[in-house]
């Protein structure tokens, strides 16, 4: 195929509208007569609901309805269980409104609908809920302690899954290893904090018996299917639109959040459109969170630093419920081996309920944990054996001639963890070159002589992307010559309107500007699973390519009769269709589209229907594995413990790059989020599991001033698993940031000998470590 636009730095089709303020986010949806919803949430981390008195709220001015669990009927059952797993023996999900027990601060207890949000919020204050506080499980370790209070009183444990995977003979490897390193690593909670919080608008048309829902979600099609089932409606009578979603990052792929059920329910019940927009404080308690894990990990190496075995036994905090199953801890366990040859590996975790907000994948989704543990272990190996940390990594890389490389584990998509392609040493060498690693010792020594603490870090990762089961696309050429692409994977800022347009444009011989991409509207495309796991470009991108090829074939067929030629002689370029070698006698593509839709006379049978249109699906056999290396230079102010990141380099291999501009944007954003998780963002809870960081005053997002310019270089090893040779890039920026920052900070403070085994750090925590290191002899 021609590759004119594929690989080019095409500026984004979506930006003119977004930059002019013409985007459509859920709060921009205007429906006549819309009422406003507000959610009354539990102030207790664990309590029994003794009684709810909503009488005063129901009669307050402007209030249309107050719903509690008793009003929900069958919708009051526990919400659907996503992604079951054989080892997940207690698959608990929450109810849309709590029935008799609340299990985290922020759990919905009542839903108020009023003429406006003010009246709804005021009415929430008038609802008297009598709680009987229950003992609280505030930490992972407390949850698994003997005699711990239980989050779910029908269970005799807080452990909902115990999972183990093994490769080789780990015990033997450790028994004969000349050298071992063991440590405990703690990763704490963070919030995804998209600029657009969650929001839902629903409108019910009782005459058409049709429900329209606008939802800031990453999975409009599963939401449509699930809502139809829960509400007893035909799927064709429910339309879910995820418009210009202002950031998703994983937590918006939950099905269902309570509000996604409550808003449509209220709209149908009241016969009025209802809107609910999550405020930031709600976001920090009521939208799923991530990252809390405690790993006890160990590595065994030979005298040269070659890995003999690795094991990690960890606790995974699922929060109060576990709707999304075991994806995050499985990804953590299977990302840990990374680009290294590990002949013997044991990973084992317990997934644990606590009285905190529910956990589901957040950008990285376990990958940062695995990488943090592995990279920290290798750093310690290098330090203990007196080896250069880069050399230790080089000695352990899987080599380019070893692909496909079978790690020996089962990945999150239930397929074998088999790396499809890559060149790990080349990626690594390029990153070292860009950061100037060879001269680093001299530069560091000069800085130290000037009293400055400079450190360099370099960390590697392999990222599972592009998993199935499938995605599809429908491509239509209109008589105007414009090409329309409809696909099920919504966009939350990833540039689908451009990447997919580039793919279709190359095949159909048009400009990407002439391709309009529709995503996230179930009325336009109704098959698909959603935008997650860095899979849109790989899975939907290849479906777009296949559909475009089918439309091209149809175009040739129709044009052949118009041009009196054979179909295989027909070419498409510059929006025109012509016989090879005779571009002067060309038809506009739109004219062929017009001809493919005749008003009279017989239509040729081989057209298999009217129009230049085709639908195709792509179902990859397994995920494609991207990889990369991050390197940075930091300076630590030893007195204030503040960091200045003077350089940040990412060398990244996501197979063939559709649009470097977009991939680099993805990486810049990912690094910013990664830096948040490395040094700033921490969801703090007190000993009663009360969240303490419920505003952006206390939950510190890195600002533009905190994020350095990110230098990006690409290595391209095409994936053999799909026709375009692409792999995913959505999470690459975030994955190794905590690991590389920890290493750089340790390097900067090497004279003090501090050990970093936790993420995030913070200026406070780092200062504590510095003070402790100075005190110890």
């Amino acid at each position, binding site marked *: 195929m021609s590759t004119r636009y594929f690989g080019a730095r095409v500026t984004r089709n979506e930006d003119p509208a977004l930059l002019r303020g013409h985007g459509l986010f859920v709060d921009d949806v205007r429906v006549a007569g819309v009422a406003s919803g507000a959610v009354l*949430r539990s*102030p*207790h981390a664990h309590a029994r609901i003794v009684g709810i008195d909503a009488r005063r709220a129901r009669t307050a001015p402007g209030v249309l309805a107050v719903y509690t669990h008793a009003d929900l009927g069958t919708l009051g059952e526990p919400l659907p269980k996503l992604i079951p797993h054989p080892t997940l023996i207690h698959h608990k999900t929450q109810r849309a409104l709590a029935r008799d027990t609340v299990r985290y601060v922020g759990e919905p207890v009542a839903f108020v609908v009023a003429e406006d949000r003010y009246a709804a919020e005021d009415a929430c204050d008038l609802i008297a809920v009598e709680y009987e506080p229950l003992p609280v499980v505030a930490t992972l370790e407390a949850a698994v302690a003997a005699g711990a209070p239980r989050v779910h009183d029908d269970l005799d444990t807080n452990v909902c899954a115990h999972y183990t995977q093994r490769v080789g003979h780990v015990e033997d490897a450790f028994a004969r290893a000349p050298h071992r390193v063991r440590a405990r690593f703690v990763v704490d909670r963070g919030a995804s904090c998209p600029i657009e919080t969650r929001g839902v608008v629903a409108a019910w048309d009782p005459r058409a018996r049709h429900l329209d829902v606008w939802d800031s979600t990453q999975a409009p099609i599963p939401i449509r299917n699930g809502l139809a089932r829960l509400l007893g409606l035909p799927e064709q009578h429910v339309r879910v639109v995820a418009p210009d979603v202002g950031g998703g990052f994983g937590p918006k792929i939950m099905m269902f959040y309570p509000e996604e059920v409550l808003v449509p329910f209220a709209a149908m019940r009241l016969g009025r459109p209802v809107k609910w927009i999550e405020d930031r*404080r709600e976001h920090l308690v009521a939208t799923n969170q991530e990252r809390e894990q405690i790993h006890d990990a160990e590595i065994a190496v030979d005298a040269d630093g070659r890995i003999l075995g690795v094991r990690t036994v960890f606790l995974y905090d699922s929060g109060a419920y576990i709707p999304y199953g075991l994806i995050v801890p499985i990804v953590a366990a299977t990302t840990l081996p990374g680009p290294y040859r590990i002949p013997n590996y044991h990973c084992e975790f317990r997934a644990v309920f606590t009285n905190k907000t529910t956990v589901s994948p957040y950008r990285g989704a376990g990958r940062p944990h695995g990488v943090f543990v592995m990279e920290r272990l290798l750093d310690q190996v290098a330090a203990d054996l007196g080896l250069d940390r880069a050399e230790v990594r080089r000695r352990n890389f899987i080599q380019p001639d070893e692909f496909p490389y079978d790690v020996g584990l089962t990945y999150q998509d239930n397929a074998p963890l088999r790396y499809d392609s890559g060149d790990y040493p080349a990626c690594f060498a390029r990153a070292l070159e860009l950061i100037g690693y060879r001269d680093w010792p001299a530069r560091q020594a000069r800085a130290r002589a000037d009293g400055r603490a400079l450190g360099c870090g370099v960390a590697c990762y392999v990222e599972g992307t592009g998993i199935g089961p499938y995605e599809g696309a429908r491509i239509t050429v209109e008589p105007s010559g414009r090409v329309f692409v409809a696909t099920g994977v919504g966009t939350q800022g990833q540039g689908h309107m451009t990447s997919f347009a580039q793919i279709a444009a190359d095949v159909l011989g048009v400009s990407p500007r002439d391709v309009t991409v529709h995503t996230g509207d179930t009325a336009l495309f109704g098959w698909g699973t959603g935008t997650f796991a860095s899979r849109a470009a790989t899975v939907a991108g290849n479906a777009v390519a296949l559909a475009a090829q089918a439309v091209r074939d149809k175009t040739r067929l129709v044009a052949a009769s118009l041009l009196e030629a054979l179909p295989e002689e027909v070419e498409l370029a510059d929006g025109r269709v012509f016989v090879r070698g005779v571009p002067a006698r060309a038809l506009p593509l739109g004219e062929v589209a017009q001809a493919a839709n005749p008003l009279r006379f017989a239509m040729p049978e081989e057209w298999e229907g009217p129009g230049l249109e085709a639908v195709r699906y792509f179902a990859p056999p397994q995920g494609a594995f991207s990889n990369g290396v991050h390197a940075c230079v930091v300076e630590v102010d030893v007195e204030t413990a503040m960091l200045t990141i003077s350089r940040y380099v990412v060398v990244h291999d996501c197979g063939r790059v559709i649009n470097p501009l977009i991939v680099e944007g993805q990486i810049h954003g990912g690094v910013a989020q990664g830096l948040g998780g490395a040094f700033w963002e921490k969801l703090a809870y007190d000993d*009663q599991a*009360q*969240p303490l960081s*419920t*505003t952006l005053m206390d939950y510190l997002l890195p600002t533009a001033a905190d994020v350095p310019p990110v230098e990006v270089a690409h290595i391209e090893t095409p994936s053999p698993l799909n026709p375009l040779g692409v792999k995913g890039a959505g999470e690459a920026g975030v994955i190794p940031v905590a690991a590389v920052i920890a290493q750089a900070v340790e390097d900067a403070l090497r004279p003090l000998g501090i050990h970093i085994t936790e993420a995030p750090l913070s200026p406070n925590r780092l200062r504590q470590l510095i003070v402790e290191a100075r005190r110890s002899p």
Partner: protein
Amino acid sequence: MKLEGTTTLPAPVETVWKTINDPEALRRCTPGLTELTATGPDAYAATLTIGIAAVKGTYKGTLTITDKRAPTHCKILLEGTGGAGFMKGEGVLDLEPEGTGTLVKWAGDMQVGGLIAGVGQRMLGGVGKMLVGQFFKCLEQQLGSGA
């Protein structure tokens, strides 16, 4: 959150004891207390309006005085809930003669939840100390004017 401290009041132990067991004095001196209705011996229904950081809330609940060993020891339990969350506190008071006055040793533990915990927790220590200070200052004035 735990707080403790001492205060000297310009009246003998018996007078101080009587004052802190007087609902009228409690009503007047407990900061933010707008209603106090006896519901039984040493038990009251209470309404409090308190601002912590940016969160001003009204809490309805109970105030109970227990563990009484007249005239030197008692425990005050306060529980309230409202739109801004809930609070639960207990304070232990020990009175000792000190010259012609009384040394009050006090220790308190306060727990908050919901909005006030999320937004106001880091201000809680300061606000708690301020409120306790206001309480004793008022008692001091009561004792001064009553003497």
